[in-house]
């Protein structure tokens, strides 16, 4: 019973929050609502016994992602009202609604399955984090490592893209200009801007 109440409560809250996120014209509201929504989602994880995931959700999303976005918002100066030109707002909502209705129509049906054996059964005897760790470092070791590389890629990408070297485009410069620029840069300290 508690579970049900919690579910409905948080469901309502997340839906409201996310709706605000996508509908408001205030960037700050949107960001805040999203952060709130993320936190509420972690509540589901806790309800569902995925404590580790809940923790990660809060740390990664509300901690890292939100911080990044907040930084970005400041950078882009979007704290004020965001003016967006809308075309066919109704169409968008209808399309989204239709998608929801259709998916819901299908997922309302009970899942009938004969295969009840879980591949990695949940072991209630140990803590969620421990169990997760167990699966993560056996079966999902490779994905885990690759995810790490992926994060590295993302990091490099972020650094490279946001770096100062991007300010001047060699692509758009004629050869003479590049030569000139290099000649100048030897005098100054600007060796390379990527790092």
């Amino acid at each position: 019973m508690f579970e049900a109440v919690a579910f409905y409560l948080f469901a309502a809250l997340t839906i409201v929050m996310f709706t605000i996120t996508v509908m408001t014209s205030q960037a700050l509201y949107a960001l805040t609502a999203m952060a709130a929504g993320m936190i509420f989602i972690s509540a589901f994880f806790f309800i569902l016994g995925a404590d580790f995931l809940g923790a990660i959700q809060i740390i990664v999303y509300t901690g890292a992602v939100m911080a990044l976005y907040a930084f970005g918002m400041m950078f882009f100066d979007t704290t004020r009202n965001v003016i967006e030109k809308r075309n066919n707002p109704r169409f968008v909502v209808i399309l989204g609604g239709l998608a929801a209705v259709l998916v819901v129509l299908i997922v309302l049906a009970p899942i009938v399955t004969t295969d009840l054996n879980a591949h990695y059964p949940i072991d209630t005897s140990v803590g969620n984090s421990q169990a997760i760790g167990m699966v993560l470092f056996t079966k999902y070791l490779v994905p885990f490592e690759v995810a790490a590389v992926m994060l590295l890629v993302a990091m490099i990408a972020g650094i490279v893209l946001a770096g100062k070297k991007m300010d001047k485009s060699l692509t758009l410069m004629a050869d003479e200009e590049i030569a000139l620029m290099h000649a100048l840069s030897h005098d100054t300290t600007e060796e390379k801007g990527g790092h």
Partner: protein
Amino acid sequence: MELTLNHYLVLSAVLFAIGLIGVMRRKNLLMLFFATEILLNAVNVGMAAISHYRGDYTGQMFAFFIIAIAASEVAVGLGLLIVWYKRTGKIDLDQMTSMRG
């Protein structure tokens, strides 16, 4: 009333749809990225729920990796936005129509 997997799936679907609306509606790229986060979060709810009802860790694993992916996407996405912003001073996607046809 007992909660079933379907409840969560419906929730997941609704959240996903909200995300879709956001993706379609937003012109401000930063806020558009918010919507994509919603999409992934919606899936995470579903994953965790299935994991729970199936008694299987795979779903949680999946959700875990999805979070990782979401995080990396933010990094790259913001990087792209920054260069774009530096170049044009705007992050409105309506400004971004130099290629068409």
